[in-house]
């Protein structure tokens, strides 16, 4: 173990942004005209090109058998990285060494031809993904069984339902046996049951000791499948470590764990009955904190602006896990409120959450209709560091969401 399968050194990828043109491709005609113009003006057209670094000095190593989740926001460079690893595009700078056969799955059903039958497409797609004819023949029955399309093998795939199409396409890909498998967000297709099956198959592949690089926005899938993670931010490696660390980094990077989180003021805030301005977290002693220690009390304070007198005002907060499971709601009792700036403080001294990041949803309503609803802006970060030493032994990843002590007694009988 411990031998490096992928070694990426200082990878950069530069894209040139063309100035907005009529089409999305170049015509020689335009190139000639441009050259001519720039020559007549006595300047070179080259410096008019704007460049953009999709990847900026990215280095990392992947060991044999690692399942690496690559996470990051849209435009962070994940897909570019996968494309470079798959040799579809070339890096502008840097060097990558890959030991063993690498197969990539950036799209389900690449090269599927609608006119060809399921059987024909299995062979075609398999060979496009890098399988030999013998390999496909050997796994043919397995692929068909996985896709559940036995009856339609000799039907052109253009007559398939989209579900069947995707199942067949994934089935072929799932039976690839390279040393390194690179998978882009392909699990986002298909129904829930099939997604589960795909994930199952991927974990099976992982158990066979293969190396996997997996890109997804589905944190639950990433967490289940991967043991290592790489967080990309604006083309740079922001974090490289265990998957839990990286997922937390990703979640908190969405709105870095600050003690006061300012909420984007809605454009029409003048017309609204009111809006939430900011949310802050206070520790047991009432001082502002960005990171709440596990098993300690804290409070959540939100600053709100009320524009009109309201007679049935409610402020609420919803708690959602990183895997998008809503699990808790807290709210104020309905009340009359006059215009002004208010602070609403919730004392969180009942239930203690396990270490990790949680998304908070803020809602303000009047007469049971919500007038300001804030999603994906506020993150509560519970730290696994605690002054109470004993907790470290109790709280771990398997502790679940809630880590409370309840009154108990131990009696000798």
């Amino acid at each position, binding site marked *: 173990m411990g031998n490096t399968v992928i070694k990426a050194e200082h990878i*950069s990828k530069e*894209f040139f942004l063309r100035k907005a043109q009529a*089409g999305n*491709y*170049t*015509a*020689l*005609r335009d*190139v000639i005209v441009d050259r001519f113009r720039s020559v007549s003006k006595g300047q070179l057209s080259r410096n008019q090109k704007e460049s953009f670094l999709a990847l900026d000095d990215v280095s990392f190593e992947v060991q044999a058998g690692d399942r690496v989740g690559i996470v990051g926001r849209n435009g962070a460079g994940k897909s570019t990285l996968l*494309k*470079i*690893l*798959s*040799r*579809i*595009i*070339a*890096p*502008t*700078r*840097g*060097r*990558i*060494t*890959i*030991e*063993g*056969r*690498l197969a*990539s799955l*950036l*799209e389900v059903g*690449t*090269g599927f*031809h609608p*006119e*060809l039958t399921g059987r*024909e497409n299995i*062979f*075609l797609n398999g*060979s*496009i*993904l*890098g399988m*030999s*004819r013998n390999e496909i023949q050997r796994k043919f029955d397995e692929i068909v069984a996985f896709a559940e399309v036995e009856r339609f093998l000799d039907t*052109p795939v253009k007559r398939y339902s989209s579900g069947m199409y995707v199942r067949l396409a994934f089935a072929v890909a799932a039976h690839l046996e390279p*040393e390194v498998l690179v998978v882009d967000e392909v699990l986002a297709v298909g129904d829930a049951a099939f997604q589960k099956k795909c994930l199952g198959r991927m974990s099976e592949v992982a158990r066979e000791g293969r190396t996997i690089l997996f890109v997804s926005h589905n944190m639950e899938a990433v967490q289940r499948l991967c043991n290592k993670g790489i967080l990309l931010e604006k083309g740079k490696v922001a974090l490289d470590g265990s998957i839990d660390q990286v997922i937390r980094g990703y979640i908190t990077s969405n709105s870095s764990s600050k003690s006061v989180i300012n909420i984007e003021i809605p454009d029409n805030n003048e017309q609204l009955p009111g809006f939430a301005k900011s949310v802050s977290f206070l520790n047991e002693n009432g001082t502002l904190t960005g990171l709440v220690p596990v098993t300690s009390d804290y409070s959540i304070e939100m600053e709100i602006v009320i524009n009109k007198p309201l007679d049935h005002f409610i402020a609420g907060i919803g708690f959602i896990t990183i895997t998008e499971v809503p699990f808790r709601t807290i709210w104020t009792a309905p009340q009359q409120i006059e215009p002004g700036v208010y602070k609403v403080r919730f004392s969180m001294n009942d239930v203690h959450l396990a270490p990790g990041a949680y998304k908070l949803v803020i809602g303000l309503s009047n007469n049971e209709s919500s007038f300001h609803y804030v999603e994906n802006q506020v993150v509560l970060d519970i730290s696994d560091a605690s002054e109470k030493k004993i907790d470290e032994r109790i709280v771990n990843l398997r502790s679940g969401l809630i880590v409370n002590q309840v009154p108990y007694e131990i009696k000798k009988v």
Partner: protein
Amino acid sequence: MGRPKTIIDADHTESGYWRDLWEYRGLFSFLAWRDLLVRYKQTVIGVAWAVIRPLLTIVVFSFFRAFLSEDVNVNAAIISVTVATIPWQLFSSSLSESSSSLIANSNLITKVYFPRIIIPVSTIMVCLADFAISLVILASLMIYFGEVPGTEVFFLPLFVLLTLFASLGLGLFLSALNVKYRDFRYVVPFVVQLGLFVSPIAINSNEIYGSATIPDFVKGLYSLNPMVAVIDGFRFCLLGTQWVVNPTGLMISLSSSVVLLIIGIWYFRKTERGFADII
């Protein structure tokens, strides 16, 4: 450890390119097989297309030929035009199919790695299949007219190969250019159309080379067209020795197709790594 090692480097093109090409030979045959299947599945008359297209050209040019030459032997005109049309069809369809092949397969290029050269080459295989069908037509026509080729017929594969080299060279070059500058798709039909008239289909190379009024440099320019050597060669192989291949002309045609092939491969390899960025 017998595992293959891949090095992706910004500065050099991968050294393992030709090794990869060998590893992906399976994909090559699958792509050719796909194109063939699709071609004959989608069209109503399927195989008939491979027959009709050359047939129309043959009819038109046979008329020309019959009118152009003094000996009004219609049978000889038809045979000589047919023998010329068949390699010309191979050349023109290989050229047009291969030069648009990269654009047509852009979904593959942006999603999977393989040596891109496989795409234009495999489309030429489909044209070769059409060519095989038209050879059958030619054979039946020759039997009908009682024309029996001599032992020269064994040279025929050489001229088929020369056709493929010429169309591949130009096809690779144009397909790579097509990725970057889409207006090159208008160039190809033009080249094909022009080629039809400067190639010895309705005319006879012997008349050109033997003419006293045509200056030498025009004869040289005429020979630059690789299809001149190919068509002369086809006539020599199938219709017998009265169709003499002009040795100087053959050398010029041969060199121009080799140069085309070298330029084609060189330019293709040079731009290949950037295809997925701009396609």
